[in-house]
């Protein structure tokens, strides 16, 4: 499917910002199933310094610095992509028992396993603890295939948790989410990652978008008007990483656009910055994903 993504961020400050430094994760990465045909970042006011590169995880990043006083900052990322379907392939992948995957990444041997082992441990937004492991363990019964069990966990999170934009913020701890059983896509992704890691399975956080209006006959997905997040779980050397979306109870297909991934939100925050001055600020983010004629 060909898609166009427009991600607009606007900060309004109550007093002038005299120095602003921003780190952007707003450029989709190129993947076997995703080609970025066109991408344009525009920033107002014009940054004094601008540079692009890749981060530790291979995601594309941009940095900018604005030293001229300003009371408003607008960043617009406009991307055109081709995304291939991948749900069917994923479901057809060979299954490996989850205990086998767990034991293989413990003492990793070979590049793929070494890389996967980097996603086994706690990270700034993902704590692991006994209750969370217990929640996950219900899906991971003895000898069960990793993908099958992980998809069962996806289904359970979807059923047990209520999507509620008012329930949490970026800083709400995972323990709170598990207790109150509500949150947004970011919380569900973190929760699922924590469950998987506490069982000894590598899991990463994927940042991206969903198609705003679905093709005819398909339901509109939750979280389509903002940036979205889901989970990739490592299913063994044969199957590799498989993306699952606990907010929508699905295997990721061609309606999901991938920006990049990391251990959790903190590694791939779309726009993270440090400003001097500014007083209070207001933030408005708009995301629109539309299908293009192919």
């Amino acid at each position, binding site marked *: 499917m060909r898609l166009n993504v427009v991600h607009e*961020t606007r*900060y309004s400050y109550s007093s002038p910002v*005299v*120095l602003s*430094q921003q*780190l952007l994760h707003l450029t989709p990465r190129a993947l076997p199933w995703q080609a970025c045909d066109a991408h344009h970042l525009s920033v107002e006011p014009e940054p004094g*310094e601008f*540079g692009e590169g890749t*981060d*530790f*995880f291979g995601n594309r990043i941009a*940095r900018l*610095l604005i*030293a001229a006083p300003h009371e408003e900052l607008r960043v617009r990322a406009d991307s055109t992509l081709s995304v291939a379907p991948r749900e069917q392939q994923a479901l057809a992948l060979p299954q490996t028992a989850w205990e086998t995957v767990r034991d293989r990444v413990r*003492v*990793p*041997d070979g*590049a793929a396993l*070494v890389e996967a*082992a*980097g*996603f*086994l*441990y*706690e990270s700034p937004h993902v704590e692991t603890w*006994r209750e969370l492991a217990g929640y996950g363990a219900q899906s991971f019964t003895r000898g069960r295939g990793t993908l099958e069990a992980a998809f069962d966990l996806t289904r359970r999170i979807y059923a047990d948790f209520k999507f509620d934009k008012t329930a949490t913020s*970026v800083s709400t701890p995972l323990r709170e989410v598990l207790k109150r059983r509500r949150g947004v896509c*970011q919380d569900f992704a973190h929760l699922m990652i924590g469950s998987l890691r506490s069982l000894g399975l590598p899991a990463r956080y994927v940042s991206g978008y969903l198609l705003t209006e679905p093709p005819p006959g398909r339901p509109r997905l939750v979280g389509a008007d*903002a*940036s979205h997040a889901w989970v990739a779980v490592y299913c063994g050397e044969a199957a590799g990483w498989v993306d699952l979306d606990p907010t929508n109870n699905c295997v990721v297909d061609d309606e999901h656009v991938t920006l990049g991934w990391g251990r959790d939100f*903190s*590694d791939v*925050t*779309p*726009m*993270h*910055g*440090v*400003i*001097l*001055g*500014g007083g209070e*600020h207001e*933030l408005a*983010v708009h995301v629109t994903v539309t299908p293009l004629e192919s």
Partner: protein
Amino acid sequence: MARELLAEYPQSTERFDEMFAAPLEPRAHWRPMLEQIAAEPVERIRERLQSVQRQMRENGVTYNVYADPQGAARPWELDLLPLILPQQVWSGIETAIAQRATLLNKILVDVYGEQRLLKEGLLPSALVHGHAGFLRPCHGARAPGDVMLQLYAADLARSPDGQWWVLDDRTQAPSGAGYALENRIVISRAFPELFRDMKVQTLASFFATLRDSLAHWAPQGGPGTSGAPLSVLLTPGPHNETYFEHAYLARYLGLPLVEGNDLTVREGCVWLKTLSGLKRVHAMLRRLDDDFCDPLELRGDSALGIPGLVDAMRRGNVLVANALGSNLLESSTLFGFLPQLSKKLLGEPLKMPSVATWWCGEPAALEDVVDKLDRLVIKPAFPQLRVEPMFGEDLDERGRKRVVAMLRARPNDYVAQEIVQLSQAPVWDKVHPRRVLARAIGLRVYACATPNGYVVMPGGLTRVASADARVISMQRGGSSKDTWVLAAGQVNTFSLLRRAIGPHELVRAGTNLSSRVVENLYWFGRYCERCDATARLLRLALGRLVDDTPGDDPGARPVIIGLLRHAEILEPGEQEPDDAELVSELRAAISDESRTGLASGVRELGRVASHLRERLSLDNWRALNRMSRTIGHNHGRLRTTTLSDVLVELDATIAAFTTLSGFALDGMTRDPGWRFLSVGRRIERMRNLCTNLKFALAGPRDTDLSWLLRLADSIITYRARYSARPEWLPVLDLLVCDDANPRSVAFQVYGLHDYARRLSEMFGDIGEEKLDASLAALRALDPGADLTHGSERLASFLDECSGAGYRLGEQLGHRFFSHVRESSHQTSAT
């Protein structure tokens, strides 16, 4: 051998004894020291002890203790007796530490580069990816010369068989080298002859090497480069536990001491905000923890860091010592893997063992640990896990079960270590001056990278355990010792990289002054003067209550009460307080920090001065320390002692302020920093003078003006000129118009105008014209007509001066200081 000296010193023990080879048989390298102290009369020893304590106190050597409810700076504890190590013992330590530093550096370079050790399974991935100190944004940043550890420290202990063991590695920003240096200076002064005769190796060349190495690996050229590379010392600020040391090292190494706010990153380079604009920084020795260094790419909530520093480091535009990310090696999980890594990376066996350590993340190790738990101590595997050490031997059956369950639940999070019986060394008994005691000790040693490999500081910080001999911690109130490494031949004072300073590298006064330092100098000037004025006013008010100095006209009492109210020393009110009330209020203003007065002023002065530590000479410090001891720490006594004793203290305080003025006048370079200090002083003095004069002029006409002269410290001059009772015309001439009197209004106006002009020449207009009206009004004063009680023109002149001083201060603040106070904050958008 003096039996009395060793009466309390256990001769037979399970520990290795640093001093005795066998009961009452001292080791050869201890003999000269033992003989000297055994032969000395008790008075001489007492003198040495007192001299050590006095130096520590007067130099303000402190260690901030976080747990202290007042966050108070605790005096650094130093024992009189050094730890003495002979050359042959030392050379074993030296080669082992240089080897370990080389090895750790190679591991670090690999983990932040190719990661071959992870791929080949030589390093478990949990040790890297499970360690919060692995900073992913720093991966791929190639360090100059592949040196990520510029300065390394190791904590060592000696077991009963005499073997040295490494207990801990300090890799991100090792502390203590500065304390070791200070300890050395103090103890070598206590035993000057022994120090020379025993051929103790000196420490100076180690620090010179460190500085030279920074310059050696600092990037060359690039934006803003002219002349020699600029190195700075980055500190988290005065609240850090080892801030004393940061300031001390900065002064010793000749590096500007900077906080994160003083620096900014532009064009991928680091710059120091100075009075004359941005100055390129090429290298920084940092004492700020890794993850706090860059709120843009590391911990977003850090207010102490420099946004963009990681990027500048990655682009090779600044040398960060140690490299960001080096905290990764501060984990004893690594210990078990070092012997094999040493063979692999260095092709040689590890020369000094680490204390036996089992990482519970390895299933076999975990079972071992459970089996012999009562002989082990359990510690967190990684520094991000805040767990106190747990000693197996302290656990009862239930505790043991709980700990085993805890280990099995999260095995990756724990290590178990053997408990090392620390060696013992003599310490001087502070209570009984003729006796030494035995205490467990540990030794922290330092290594510094050079182009020719690591060099090890010939000495170190010996730390003395407190009551629980199993734990050494300065946070828990341990003490310290100087460490004497004896030279086999000549004492080596040669530095490897020494080179001469070329003419293009000459540093002109004040070019690297950061805006923060200048702001603090300005306030230092103002607070000095404010405290001086407050002390003089208190002395005047109190003195009138004690004795009947002739000329203390009762008519002046309401005017002085008015001044006390204006200074907020007394509550505002219509009624005059009676003498008893007045005395109690004045005592409180002198000693109570919680109200406006002298004690709170001295505290503020100390706060500002603490930010200027590396800029103020030791003499300044001694004067300041003495003053805050008199005023700040004597709270109770000053409230109850006799009034004449209080007056004696006030005299001493005023003398101390005079001493501080003297240092500023005589001991400081006339750089812009000095001018800011002087401007601060003069603005404060002028405003204070104007206030005193206005109150006098508003008081009765027919009165004795001695009090006014006394407040302005001009009574001697007056008496020398006029042998008569103070009268309006001569008094006003002396205090307003006489530009030769450093306490006249005219002196302040001319001086401020001159400083403002000079600063304008350097930095562009800073508003010297704000003083033009005062200058004109001063010249227009007609002694015959205007220097009288009730003169309108004089009153408006005083208002003008006072206002001009205020406006100049505001202008300076706006122009040079305002951006320093503001701290940046993070934002995040999804």
